């Protein structure tokens, strides 16, 4: 009986260890292929080059256009998601009564549950044509449409995390403010939001990380032309869309072109991982503040 219990415990432990194995696997796979890539392409060319044409006969491997594309779309998404998400959170946390909250929150969560390929469809075939009626120079593939749609997709994340942070603020602070004659708006903006600042910032950073890692919306609607630009009206390509582009093709294993997806993947992983760590650290801090 003793031995059986011991075997069971070891078995369960191994299953738990699999998650560590996954992380190790991700890092190992990305590192090995990136190392092979960097043996042929100097890292300075990769990180600081401004032309990304790895599939040409005389290729360039400067990743900055992809990074610019990702940054541009994410920025637009954040401009949509952050203010709207924060305002929604303020409304749900400070104004709405529990009945309203019980209805509105799940519907808001629905936004997060829609598959990204559906959002891509929406961005390409509804939002971009709609925008084209107001912005005549808007290309069919651009950064603006998918950026806005991505913002809507991320909004629930910002809203719900910010709301958590705000609800963790002790009521005593609010009551003190009301007692001084402040309105709800003043209390929310001047007392609650600053008090929940670390938590809200953690939410924002996590949202950015999510936007950076998003693939299908941009693969469908942003285009496949890597371009180092801040212009949201023209076609670009993001890091994630590039990986999809190559995967859809016939690139044989072991070639330099094949390895580019891992090098870009490594960059993506490092970026999002850093952002996630930062967000976790901030969230830990706000929890400690109010525990």
């Amino acid at each position, binding site marked *: 009986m003793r031995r059986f219990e011991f075997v069971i415990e070891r078995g369960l*432990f191994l299953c738990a260890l699999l998650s560590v194995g996954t992380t190790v696997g*991700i890092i190992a796979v990305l590192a090995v292929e990136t190392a092979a890539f960097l043996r042929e392409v100097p890292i300075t060319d990769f990180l600081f080059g401004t032309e990304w044409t790895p599939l040409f006969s005389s290729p360039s491997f400067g990743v900055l256009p992809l990074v610019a594309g990702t940054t541009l779309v994410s920025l637009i998404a954040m401009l949509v998601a952050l203010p709207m998400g924060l305002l929604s959170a303020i409304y749900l946390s400070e104004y709405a009564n529990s009945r309203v909250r019980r209805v509105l929150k799940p519907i808001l969560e629905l936004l997060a549950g829609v598959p990204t390929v559906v959002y891509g469809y929406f961005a390409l075939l509804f939002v971009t044509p709609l925008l084209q009626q107001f912005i005549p120079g808007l290309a069919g593939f651009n950064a603006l449409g998918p950026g806005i749609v991505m913002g809507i997709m991320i909004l629930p994340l910002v809203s719900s995390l910010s709301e958590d942070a705000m609800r963790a603020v002790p009521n005593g602070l609010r009551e003190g403010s009301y007692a001084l004659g402040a309105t709800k708006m003043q209390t929310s903006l001047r007392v609650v939001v600053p008090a929940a600042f670390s938590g809200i910032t953690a939410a924002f950073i996590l949202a950015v990380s999510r936007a950076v890692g998003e693939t299908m919306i941009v693969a469908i609607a942003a285009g496949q032309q890597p371009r180092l630009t801040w212009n949201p009206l023209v076609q670009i390509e993001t890091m994630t869309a590039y990986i999809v582009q190559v995967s859809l093709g016939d690139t044989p294993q072991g070639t330099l072109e094949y390895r580019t997806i891992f090098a870009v*993947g490594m960059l993506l992983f490092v970026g999002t991982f850093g952002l996630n760590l930062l967000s976790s650290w901030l969230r830990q801090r706000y929890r400690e503040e109010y525990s």
Partner: protein
Amino acid sequence: MRRSLDLAFQACALLVLLAALAALAALIVDVVRDGTARLSWDFITGYPSRRASQAGIFPALAGSIVVILLTAILALPIGVAAAIYLEEYGRRNFVARAIELNITNLAAVPSIIYGLLGLAVFVRLMGMGRSVIAGAATLALLALPVVILATREALRAVPKSIREGSYALGATKWQTIWHQVLPVAAPGILTGLILSLSRAIGETAPLITMGALTYVSFAPDSIWSSFTVLPIQIFNWVSRPQRDFHANAAAGILLLMGLLLTMNGLAIWLRDRYQKKVAG
């Protein structure tokens, strides 16, 4: 004056919230408008074709169902086992803390990275090829953090008094877990599994990356066969310039959303029905 500013702010915040919901409504209306006409029995059971009006979605539908079933078979036992270890056995040791932290981080890794992992390890290294099982393994890794989290919550919800009663009768730890804790936690675990699967069924990027094809004219006939899934088929059709294919894409979206709603509804029903009173 301040009062009206406050009211304006409140209205503004509410408007923003409603705007987001309006966007969702616009999306739904748009898809319904574009796709309902194409949604028919022939469409669901038909095969892809170069003529948009004759194209069907069956291989993708079958592929999705097979992949999801395989993902469930892989993710459930491993996820539950890991959660049991973390919640019941490893509460106070350092390795368990490290594993927990690791799982939290994994949950936030972009899904396309999982595709790269699946490509290198399952497809190439382990020689599974671009098969359904490799796809399912990739998605299982993706689903694991959610399953583990949901299972841990379900385990935590089991009252301590039940465990104590079992130990006092001379039960071992595993006997207590298997006979008393798991049966009580089971509905919560299943609900978590279904929810994680409903997310997995909409995943596109990891499967494209690990090599699911975009043009497949057959349903998968074994776990080693190549495959495609609903979201990839939708992606394929949306990427074509012809408007007729866009209608197909919209119909495919309706099908996918229908599947999602069913799964989520099932999860919610399960949770409500089996939320029995466990302690008097």
